[in-house]
């Protein structure tokens, strides 16, 4: 067996994110009989409550309490981990904005292998972990092999490893705060600027008409607006539309935008990256219209229509008008 498995726990306001249990499940796919050790960094009461809550899932929790870790600055946490991790450690991180910030550099500093955004593990062959990932925005998947012999850092896609429920690990919390060493870094966290609030709150709407790259031109946005108005819906969008400044940021659905819980989600010309899908909760009825039959959105939609939205939207709008 290669090195011990560790799971870095991302938490907010004293509560661990869902990824905490997902990483435990991911670790069990590497070594079914050797549960991962959790690592939690932070300060004060929030840190305590996260660690205590994790004792039901993890047999051992390494707690690092340090003033410099009140906010998770990946550069600081990287230094601490390099100092406390044993040789050959296998470190699991969520593939979120923190894991992406920490993972690549940590793997170099630990001189270990790095695999990003794993969606599944299909077993070990000797010291080689068999990993499934996606490329080209989810249009194709790959089998890859990650050699754990010298340790590894692996980021796991949130939502991809079904968490273990109702665990009773009876774990213990081990305080590692004294072992972190020098934490001087050349990147200093200043503050978080909260997302701007728009004139429309897309999280409150039961029906969303959501547009993506397939809308092709700023002038075509009004096609979606007209349709939405007729449907009593609100227009939302995917990231490229905000990048192009065709709609404002508060209308963006996805992990880097809003999390929405509509009853009906009409995805028009949206390919369906996992970051976009990560912002759709509450199992809405999803209709996807896209000219590319291979678009990943069709894997998660309830109903799919293979058409160019620029032909489709005006026709649908017309039909709805007629029916009124």
């Amino acid at each position, binding site marked *: 067996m290669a090195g011990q498995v560790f799971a870095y726990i991302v938490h907010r306001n004293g509560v661990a994110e869902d990824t905490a249990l997902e990483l435990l499940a991911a670790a069990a796919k590497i070594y079914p009989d050797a549960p991962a050790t959790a690592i939690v960094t932070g300060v004060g009461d929030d840190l305590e409550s996260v660690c205590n809550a994790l004792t039901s899932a993890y047999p051992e929790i390494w707690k690092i309490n340090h003033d410099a870790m009140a906010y998770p600055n990946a550069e600081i946490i990287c230094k601490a981990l390099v100092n406390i991790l044993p040789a050959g450690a296998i470190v699991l991180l969520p593939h*979120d*904005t923190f894991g*992406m*910030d920490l993972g*690549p*550099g940590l*793997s*170099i500093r630990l001189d*270990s*292998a*790095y695999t*990003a*955004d794993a969606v599944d593990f299909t077993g070990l062959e000797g010291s080689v972990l068999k990993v499934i990932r996606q*490329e*080209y925005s989810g*249009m*194709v*998947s*790959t089998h*890859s092999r*990650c050699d754990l012999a010298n340790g*590894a850092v692996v980021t796991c896609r949130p939502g991809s490893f079904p968490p273990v429920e109702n665990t009773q690990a009876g774990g213990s919390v081990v305080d590692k705060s004294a072992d972190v060493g020098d934490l001087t870094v*050349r*990147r*200093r*966290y*200043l*503050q*978080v*600027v909260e*997302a*701007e609030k728009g004139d429309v709150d897309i999280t409150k709407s039961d*029906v969303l008409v959501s547009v993506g*790259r397939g809308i092709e031109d700023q002038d075509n946005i009004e096609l979606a607006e007209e349709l939405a108005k007729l*449907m*009593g819906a609100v227009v939302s969008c995917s990231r*490229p539309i905000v*990048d192009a400044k065709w709609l404002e940021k508060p209308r963006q659905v996805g992990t*880097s*935008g*809003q*999390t929405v819980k509509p*009853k009906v989600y*009409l995805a028009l010309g949206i390919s369906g990256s996992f970051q976009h899908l990560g912002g759709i909760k509450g199992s809405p009825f999803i*209709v996807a219209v896209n000219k*590319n*039959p291979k678009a990943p959105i*069709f*894997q*998660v*939609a*309830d*109903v*799919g*229509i293979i058409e160019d939205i620029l*032909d*489709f939207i005006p*026709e*649908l709008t017309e039909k*709805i008008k007629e029916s009124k």
Partner: protein
Amino acid sequence: MEILVCVKRVPDTAENEIEVNKDGSDIERDDLVYSVNEWDNYAVEEAIQIRDKVGGSVTVITVGDDESEEVLRREMAMGADNGILLSDAAFENSDGRGIATILKAAVAKGQYDLVLTGAQADDGAGQVGGMLAAMLDWPYASLVNSLEVEGGEKIKVGREIEGGNQEINEIDLPCVLSIQTGINEPRYVGIRGIRKVASVDIPVHGAADLGLAAEATGSGGARVKRVDYFVPELGEGAEILEGSMEEKIDKLMELLKSKGGLK
């Protein structure tokens, strides 16, 4: 400020349907349209804007074959001052660490204050920037969506984090940043712009020029290897509506009514 921007030539997913080839060894590459990785255009635009504000130069660099030269020229047409192509048979099938190793050697040959990469590329890993920073022992910030130069010693960067929030950091130079889309609006490059730089000399460096041992890069040095490509067996997936446009719309309206999407 001397700025190096790492770019990559990739199949353009907006222009192509990406399919797996017959034996799964690769994607189907016949008739693929290639372009610069989308994120890299934002990185180059940001670099040009910084240079225009505080002076210095922008160099674009890529690891690839002769065909990758075209993406360097495209970025030079945007306004980058220099291009460098890193090319060697020994570099083929490098993993992320291998690519970072090659780039590190190239960074060491220059005098750069700032290295930018796109936040991710076709494989979605987003790994080379962070690895390169650690190899150089420079500070790193990923997913940068705002950037403000403060004198010659540090810059203020905003990182995109969950929920549309932004994490503001101050970072010392030299540093490596990975640039997120949306940070700016990359300028348009016309045919004329590309013609202007068509004959500019782009130096090519191989493993020996960079002082790299053969086993440090390429498939031999890789700890992570892609075995094959496949299309996963899906669950049920969407029920695809068939028929004419009119039939599809009729069916859809019925469904929308029953689900409360159409009153």
